[in-house]
């Protein structure tokens, strides 16, 4: 029973990792940009939610704070893309990597300066601490369950956006061929900024559960980037549902590792990733083309 519980917890943890990964995957898919500051932006979003929650009347709940953080994070993504990342778009991979690495350092140290290195947690207002007892020895927390459900909803929503709407069509066209996309009247720079804004809104959702599930501090961003990256690669580039499965695999590897020895949690997650990379370099669900 203990192992069943471990695996269930791992799958639910995978929902969180899929939320981390979705924004990263979106930005790579549309503008071929790998954002090394992705993890730090998630942590930034968590602090934005903390601040908003403290400004709201007590008891109004973190979900309201999340909703208010969405436009803020959209603005952060939009501004980052227009102000900096759009200027790094050409064949060379170095400029975007250096610029986002620079932002990683700036965000991390900026948060340290403002919020100190103390670890924090989002305020709980009731439902977050509840849990369901499924069977003897297995109880599922409300937060992990809602987190997983959120990942499914976010991914389903993004898939609808990408495959069923006009702007999604423009995303796919620009990803295929930015120059020809301009001939359709698509301003690819503005489109990229919108995509970055959407990716940051997903980061805000991820940040909510980051802050509800565990303590966080300004320095944990890079580790979230690595989990996100692992989920994307394991799932296969270009498939958001694959990313969800990838997140679940990393999550289960971590909880199983932690079950054997608590110090092994992160290590087993990384090792699972490396093994899959060796066995299936293109991930479990690669896109058929290319």
């Amino acid at each position, binding site marked *: 029973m203990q192992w069943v519980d471990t695996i269930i917890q791992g799958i639910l943890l995978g929902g969180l990792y899929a939320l981390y990964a979705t924004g990263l995957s979106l930005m790579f898919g549309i503008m071929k940009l790998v954002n090394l500051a992705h993890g730090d932006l998630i942590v930034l979003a968590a602090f934005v939610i903390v601040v908003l929650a403290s400004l709201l009347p007590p008891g109004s709940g973190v979900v309201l704070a999340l909703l208010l953080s969405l436009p803020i994070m959209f603005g952060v993504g939009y501004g980052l893309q227009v102000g900096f990342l759009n200027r790094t778009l050409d064949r060379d991979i170095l400029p975007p990597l250096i610029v986002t690495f*620079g*932002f990683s350092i*700036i965000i991390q140290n900026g948060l340290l300066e403002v919020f100190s290195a103390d670890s924090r947690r989002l305020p709980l207002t009731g439902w977050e601490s509840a849990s369901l007892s499924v069977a003897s020895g297995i109880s599922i927390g409300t937060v992990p369950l809602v987190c997983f459900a959120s990942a499914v909803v976010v991914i389903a929503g993004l898939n609808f956006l990408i495959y069923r709407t006009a702007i999604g069509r423009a995303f796919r066209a620009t990803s295929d061929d930015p120059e020809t996309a301009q001939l359709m009247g698509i301003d690819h720079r503005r489109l990229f900024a919108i995509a970055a804004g959407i990716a940051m809104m997903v980061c805000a959702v991820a940040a909510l559960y980051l802050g509800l599930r565990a303590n966080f501090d300004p320095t944990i961003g890079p580790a979230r980037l690595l989990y996100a*990256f692992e989920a994307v690669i394991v799932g296969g580039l270009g498939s958001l549902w694959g990313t969800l499965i990838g997140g679940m695999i990393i999550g289960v590897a971590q909880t199983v590792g932690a079950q054997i020895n608590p110090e092994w949690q992160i290590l087993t997650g990384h090792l699972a990733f490396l093994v899959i990379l060796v066995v299936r370099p293109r991930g479990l669900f690669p896109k058929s083309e290319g």
Partner: protein
Amino acid sequence: MTAASPRFRMTTRTRVSSWATIGAAILTAGLAALPAVASRGLIQDLFFIFTMLCLAQYWNLLAGYAGLVSVGQQAFVGLGAYTLFAATILAGIEPLTAALLSGVVAAAMAVPTAFVVFRLRGAYFAIGTWVAAEVYRLVLAQVKELGGGTGTSLTMSVVSSTAGLDWVSMAFGVRTPAARDIVVYWAALALLVITLAGIYWLLRSRFGLALSSLRDSELTASSIGVDAFRLKVFVYILTAAGGGAAGALIFLQSARISPDSAFAVLDWTAYVIFIVVIGGIGTIEGPIVGAVVFYFLQTYLAAFGTWYLMLLGALGIVIMLIAPKGIWGSIADRFDLHLFPTRRRLVVTSTRRTGDDRQRARQSGPPSGQMRR
């Protein structure tokens, strides 16, 4: 063809570069003799610059020449450092010999690492190398013999077993800690000279030509027989060896190690990238300029902590967006100055030209359109 055709010779050398080579040799001799007169503080500062410059040259070779942007080079610094601690503490090997061993071990570990991370391309390769470094950090944190997660220190007996210590103490009339600084300073200087001379030689060889063809177009390079994959793996292993040796010296000097410090992405990758980017990527001179700039920033601003780091991040971003060739690249472009040129130029060795030749030269203009002046 008439006998009077101009003759050509391939060269990378220029008059400036010949002088620069002589200057570098004199500078090296001066630096080697420096401990006789310099303060202990200056020797320590130069040690810091030398080791960081070594790491910067390796990263520059990786990213600037082989197109392998890694953010996981701390893996090899850490592996080298831990090899030194394991070899000296557990096996009783003399520290400088152990530092050589560190280079070998780091290179050996680069092989399986490359086997995994080379499955990833471009930016994903970058994050993959970071994951690999994290794996090494987490594994070494489990090794209780080397202090586990909290780390360990070199004992006095290990430190004082360093070769040449007694001789230096006697020759310069200094106590053991200062003598140790001098010995590791020389070791770092030797590593730096080998690194710079080795990379300079490498880039001017056939290998360098293959590498630059790769940088221009991987597809074209492979179509003329350049094995891109093998070339990149070779560079990766080479830089791992150097990084391992540098890491061993850095932690021999500090005599204290922990997984977090040995595998620190900030110290051994972020700072190093900063040095290369601010100095000028893709040149040998750039990282030298960058290391000096970084030293002064570090000396005068590091006390500002988070603000200092934010400044470094911002500087890196600004340089990348406004002057992506860095300080040296901008100077070199402006004055056409290359102290350590690696590009091949065609030099006319016989200037006798007949009217025929001139005629021919005029006729072989661009086929259509015209080159703009």
